[in-house]
């Protein structure tokens, strides 16, 4: 399209909650691990995000842990965790070699537990804390801190007091008022909101009449949830001033652009990496190509750029336009 712009001229960087990222694409927690280092160079990513870790040793959920669904995946992995010392000694060093900042996802059963874990992990090599206050498949019918503004405010405030690192708070899409929850997170000191985790779901095996997942319910991810989470990102981005990191069903650069336009400052890619292991680097390449084609010199110009006004012209572009 434009002979004037070269790939080098597209500024792909974004600033998210205290961090400058070389591009807005990073993995979603729980869908990223060392295996991908055989597929692409981790330094190409905007950031690295660990699987959620907990203080307690956890075995994770009974099998089966995943089941397919139309355009999506339901998982009830749980949070198998080998604890903090193992993480610090065996996992952290693996990522030390990379320039891409490491975001550590944490979870705990109480607000105090969250705070003390964040404090303990505020160490060199960790660039930011992502507090997973949303994982739907752990306790009591999927309830989580991020179901309510009050619980979110409490846990975020304690986390904020416990760490000087950038604090990202990951919300659940299962609440009826996600913009209010996002406001609570902002008000109590979060540097960014990750929108969102998986949507509580269920499937039943017709051979056995049992739930398809060992844990009965699980979280839906993948393309199926994209329009729902995109709407939530749009709602949150209009409600708060801290950055929103969009996460839900992103598989292509087109999906990523939709999220940026809706107001996300960066995006996380989860389930797509299970289908195409190089999904993230493909998205980065295609996102740059999109910017070149549309003559957008900074990817950050896309953030929140959706044009909202009543459209009333009917699209008849399949009919040849006259001249």
């Amino acid at each position: 399209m434009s002979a004037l712009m070269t790939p080098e001229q597209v500024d792909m960087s974004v600033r998210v909650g205290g961090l400058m990222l070389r591009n807005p694409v990073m993995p979603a927690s729980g869908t990223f691990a060392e295996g991908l280092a055989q597929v692409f160079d981790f330094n190409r990513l905007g950031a690295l995000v660990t699987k959620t870790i907990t203080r307690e040793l956890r075995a994770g959920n009974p099998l089966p842990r995943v089941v397919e669904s139309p355009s999506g995946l339901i998982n009830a992995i749980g949070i198998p965790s080998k604890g903090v010392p193992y993480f610090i000694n065996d996992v952290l060093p693996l990522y030390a070699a990379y320039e891409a900042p490491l975001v550590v996802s944490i979870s705990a059963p109480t607000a105090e537990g969250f705070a003390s874990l964040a404090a303990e992990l505020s160490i060199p090599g960790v660039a930011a804390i992502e507090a997973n206050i949303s994982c739907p498949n752990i306790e009591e019918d999927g309830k989580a801190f991020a179901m309510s503004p009050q619980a979110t405010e409490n846990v975020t405030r304690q986390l904020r007091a416990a760490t000087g690192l950038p604090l990202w708070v990951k919300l659940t899409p299962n609440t009826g008022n996600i913009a209010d929850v996002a406001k609570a997170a902002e008000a109590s000191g979060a540097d960014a909101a990750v929108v969102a985790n998986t949507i509580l779901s269920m499937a039943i095996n017709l051979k056995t009449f049992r739930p398809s997942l060992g844990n009965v319910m699980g979280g839906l991810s993948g393309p199926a949830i994209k329009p729902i989470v995109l709407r939530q990102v749009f709602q949150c981005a209009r409600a708060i001033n801290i950055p929103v990191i969009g996460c839900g069903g992103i598989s292509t650069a087109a999906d990523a652009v939709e999220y940026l336009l809706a107001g996300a400052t960066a995006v996380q890619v989860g389930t797509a990496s299970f289908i195409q292991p190089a999904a993230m680097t493909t998205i980065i390449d295609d996102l740059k190509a999109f910017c070149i084609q549309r003559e957008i010199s900074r990817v950050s110009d896309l953030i929140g750029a959706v044009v909202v006004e009543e459209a009333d012209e009917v699209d008849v572009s399949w009919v040849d336009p006259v001249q």
Partner: protein
Amino acid sequence: MNSLDHVSRTAHWKPTIVAERALIVAHTAVNGEYRHLIVECGDEAASALPGQFFQLLCPQPAGEQSFLRRPMSVYGVDPARRRVEFLYKVAGVGTRGLDTLKVGDTLDLMGPLGVGFTLDPGLRNIAVVGRGAGLATLAPLAGACRARGIGVTAILSARRPDLLMSIELFESHGAEVITVTDSEQTSGPANVERILRHLISQDRCDAFFTCGSSRLLRVQQRLAHEFGLSGEIAMEQQMACGIGLCHCCVRDFNVKGEIVSKRVCWDGPVFDMMQALP
């Protein structure tokens, strides 16, 4: 875990696992249930080792949808001609989709994945015990053994004689083949144990390599323990990512008396037979 060591972060960084569209060069029905698929692929895929597997993005059969890739063992590999073979059973939506592929079509495959079989330099003779699709996983081992001068006796099990597969393939690699079937009532653990004891007594079994039957695993574990032999097993588990990201494919293993959870796709699919819990 130390796979990150593999990663060179220079400008010449190269992936060792790739997803690519491979070309179908042959696709035939072995019997009513099984298909034999040969694809032409890149160098990385064509360097797959026995026991490794690929994740196949199966085409959607009309009116049906699958979302995840499907794991399939390497059934044969030819690095020179850059070919990989699969032997698969038409089981559900994914494999029904595979079944629609014609020569000239392409198939998106990702791999090679996982840890394959190890052939200890000290081995002279091995017993290979397989059933069902497990034969697909074990077949390339026979070729690797021949290249290393290791003798192979393959005990192939199936429901009926007409469902036995890969006999010629094992024999072409110089393996001696013994078939057992349910319909002939020769496939039970007792008979297989008798055959294996005979092999051991003839000094024709330094190690077991197995896949596809829990009951036959137990027989081999018992004999390995009794005679101080080693063994490896290729295990299966439902998979999502196939590359160690999601922890859906875990199994428990007995590592020196301790129960340890491992990812079949990443820590295996081939494991020390003595650690396997049937």
